[in-house]
């Protein structure tokens, strides 16, 4: 899945990468750089030529004058050579052949520099010697002329000496190949016949000859050195470098052109691919359009379907709500029925004996009335003067018979007892009725201040028939503040918990009811020592429809309603239970209700 999504991206990336690479290769030839490199080479060439010129000039001009120029040129040449070797304009590293040529050139020019320095140093010494020997020449010629006694000799010597001086001057400035030979020839001419001359003459001639020889030697050395300097093949080598570079550049250009051709081909290929994709896209769009129009159609249908479904769903929801309300109602009716059964029995029992007692009293009173009448009649007869003894005796015996039958002493006691019982029964009924009223709280508003302890008592009374003679209620009531709540709902909670506790207890047991005040609220604990429940059961008891009672005995809504009522009151309910030991329900309720809590609470419980 991921790969499928990644693949097109990968392909596009590669295509763009190739394009970029080709583009870069076509632009690898930088014309500006090329020009700069060529200029650099030219500059080096020019400087080299200039340097040569400067060295050549040194023969004519003063060395000191040209030294500064030379230094400057050398400096610039060095910079340009560095630029050739490295830096942006460098030629190094372009290809091997070029590198070799460059190295050769750089070596040569370096050697040339060394020769230059050597020449400079030697030149100073040679020039000094040259100057000294040149200066010695006129002295020697004069001495020679002095030493020649003969005037003819003097006449012969004078043109020779003049020619020698000219030749020497020419030699020192611009030597020609014949200079040295001419000088030596002139000296030889002067020597010819010297055996005939005086000692002084010979000495002067020797001195002159040695001076001239030194001049020739010095000058020859100087010329040789300059020739060697100038003979360095820098120009040719630089040209080779230039040629090598140009060849490389041409190669580069050719390569770039090749890449350009490839780029064009590649671009054409890309265009083709794009065109293909475009066509495919267009076709896809066509398909999409068709699909879309189908979808639009389907959509319209769907809307109708959705409408229908929504209607169905809302109907189902309504039904569900109704049935939920019905279930809660039926749970309420069931618990109400249970309560009514208990209460009816509780009321009908005292009512039964009270009514029966009244009836017994009535019949007994009838007997007593008869007795009284009989006794009255007997008394009347006894006091009457015209009654016969027989009549009196009959009346008396009748009265006595009745008295024995009725036994007034015993009967009066019985009647008292019966009436006492009747009273007791009536009080019980009155109590129950008043508890019922308290329990339902129909005469009180929904949110009222309520004494929890009283509510618990009421609930206990209502379910008394389930507790009576079987379960001991242990009350541990704390002094509680009145809390704001819906009394009838809380009574329902207590009744439910007591009923459950009573059902959890088998034949006999105890229910502890513990209440205490807490910060901002009250806590109520209802503890029974009944059968308890397992953890699985305990975790589910507040779920709607969860019941452990047999089918038909409970809806399983009782505790879920309890939970909701406590929740609505902003309270909590917790359970602890140990199987076989009993259960403990702990309810915590706040003193005050939050605003707008009860007004719109769930409608299903509103009627509770």
């Amino acid at each position, binding site marked *: 899945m991921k790969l499928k999504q990644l693949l097109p991206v990968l392909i596009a990336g590669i295509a763009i990468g190739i394009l970029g690479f080709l583009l870069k290769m076509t632009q690898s030839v930088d014309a500006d750089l090329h020009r700069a490199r060529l200029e650099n080479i030219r500059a080096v060439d020019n400087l080299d030529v200039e340097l040569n010129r400067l060295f050549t000039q040194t023969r004519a001009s003063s060395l000191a004058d040209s030294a500064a120029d030379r230094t400057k040129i050398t400096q610039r040449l060095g910079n340009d050579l560095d630029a050739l070797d490295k830096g942006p304009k460098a030629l190094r590293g372009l290809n091997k052949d070029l590198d070799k040529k460059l190295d050769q050139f750089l070596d040569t020019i370096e050697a040339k520099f060394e020769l230059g320095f050597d020449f400079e140093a030697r030149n100073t010494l040679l020039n000094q010697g040259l100057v000294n020997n040149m200066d010695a020449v006129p002295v020697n010629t004069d001495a020679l002329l002095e030493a020649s006694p003969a005037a003819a000799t003097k006449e012969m010597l004078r043109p020779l000496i003049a020619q020698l001086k000219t030749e020497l001057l020419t030699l020192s400035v611009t030597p020609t190949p014949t200079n040295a030979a001419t000088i030596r020839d002139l000296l030889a001419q002067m020597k010819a016949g010297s055996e005939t001359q005086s000692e002084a003459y010979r000495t002067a001639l020797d001195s002159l000859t040695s001076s001239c020889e030194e001049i020739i030697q010095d000058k020859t050395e100087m010329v040789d050195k300059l020739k060697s300097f100038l003979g360095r093949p820098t120009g040719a080598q630089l040209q080779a470098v230039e040629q090598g570079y140009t060849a490389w550049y041409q190669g580069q250009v050719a390569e770039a052109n090749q890449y350009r051709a490839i780029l064009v081909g590649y671009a054409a290929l890309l265009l083709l691919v794009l065109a293909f994709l475009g066509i495919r896209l267009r076709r896809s769009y066509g398909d999409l359009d068709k699909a879309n129009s189908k979808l639009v159609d389907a959509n319209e249908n769907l809307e109708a379907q959705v409408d229908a479904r929504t209607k169905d769903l809302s109907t189902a929801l309504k039904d569900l709500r109704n049935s939920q309300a019905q279930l809660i109602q039926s749970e309420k009716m069931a618990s109400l029925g249970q309560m009514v059964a*208990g209460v009816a*029995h509780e009321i009908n*029992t005292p009512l039964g004996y009270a*009514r029966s007692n009244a009836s017994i009293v009535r*019949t007994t009173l009838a007997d007593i009335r008869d007795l009284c009448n009989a006794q009255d009649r007997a008394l009347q007869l006894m006091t009457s003067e015209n009654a016969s003894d027989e009549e009196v005796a009959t009346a008396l015996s009748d009265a006595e018979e009745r008295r024995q039958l009725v036994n007034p002493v015993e009967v009066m006691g019985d009647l008292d007892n019966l009436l006492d019982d009747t009273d007791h029964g009536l009080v019980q009924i009155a109590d129950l009725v008043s508890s019922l009223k308290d329990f339902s709280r129909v005469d009180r508003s929904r949110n009222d201040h309520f004494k929890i302890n009283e509510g618990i008592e009421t609930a206990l009374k209502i379910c008394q028939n389930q507790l009576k003679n079987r379960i001991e209620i242990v009350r541990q009531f704390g002094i509680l503040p009145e809390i704001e709540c819906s009394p009838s709902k809380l009574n329902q909670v207590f009744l439910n918990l007591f009923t459950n506790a009573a059902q959890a207890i088998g034949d006999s047991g105890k229910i502890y009811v513990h209440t205490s005040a807490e910060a901002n609220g009250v806590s109520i604990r209802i503890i029974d020592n009944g059968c308890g429940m397992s953890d699985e059961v305990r975790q589910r008891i507040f779920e709607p429809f969860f019941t452990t009672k047999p089918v038909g005995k409970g809806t399983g809504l009782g505790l879920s309603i309890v939970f909701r009522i406590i929740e609505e009151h902003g309270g909590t309910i917790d359970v602890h239970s140990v199987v076989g030991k009993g259960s403990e329900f702990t309810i915590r309720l706040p003193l005050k209700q939050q605003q707008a809590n009860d007004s719109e609470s769930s409608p299903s419980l509103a009627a509770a």
Partner: protein
Amino acid sequence: MTASTTAKARVLFVDDEPRILTTMRMLFRNHYDVFFAESGQKALDLLKVQAVDVIVSDQRMPGMTGIELLRAARDLNPNAMRILLTGYSDLNAIIGSINEGEIFRFVNKPWSNEDLSVTVARAVAAARTSAALSAASTNEALATPPGPQPGVLVMDDDPSVPVKVQSILGDDYRVFGATTMDDAVSLMERERIGVVLSDTRVQDNPVISLISTLKQHHPELVSVILTDRADAGQAIELINQGQIYRFITKPIHDNQCKITVNSALKQHERLAQNPELHKRYEVEASATPPPTAATTGAKFLDRIRSLRSWVKRA
């Protein structure tokens, strides 16, 4: 019988409210030997040492309910007539008292002294009559009477019910179906019927008057109610005025139905052979005239009265 008529009948009252017992003592001490117990357990303890003729018990008592007590008492002291005197009972308790307690009457608190006295007196009389019989003929095997085997008449609006009952009981039983009371009576005129299996209402008419009349004139007929419209008041009427033998609820459970019908047929045989027992199933006169009297009333009931008795003939 001579001995027992001279001695006072023994009546046991059971209630967890002692004042009720006081009242009962005042009411009955002149006529019977009265015994009292404040709980079911105490009553059973007493019954173990002292047989009685009638037991009057409350239903809602801690520890043991009235039905539980009467069922146990039926085993301990089968001849004693059983009466429930209770302030309130839900339908389950009433059905339980019919099926398990086989009670004679169901009396609501508060009661009328006269009615209660009459009821107790009737129960005493029935107990006295049948006590002699059971003493005389406990070992006498029930001989199958001659004539056709008694059939089962099923009265129900739903014609599939008789078919279902027939299929449950099997082909050894004769099952007749009727969807109206006229059909039922016509059937009874033609066939020997031992057990009537009926819904509480047929064609929207309560069957109570039919059953009551049948029981009055043909006490050997045994009625069983099979219904899904159970109602506490109706059930009480059916026991007091119709002496129904069993009360079962739909949907029909095969086993329960079979056991009930078998037991009802046996009861029919017992009653047919021992008319002395009839008193034990004597019905209370209906306070109101039967509603069917409006149209076909008197004539219809005459037909029921004049149904020939298969038993007498046999």
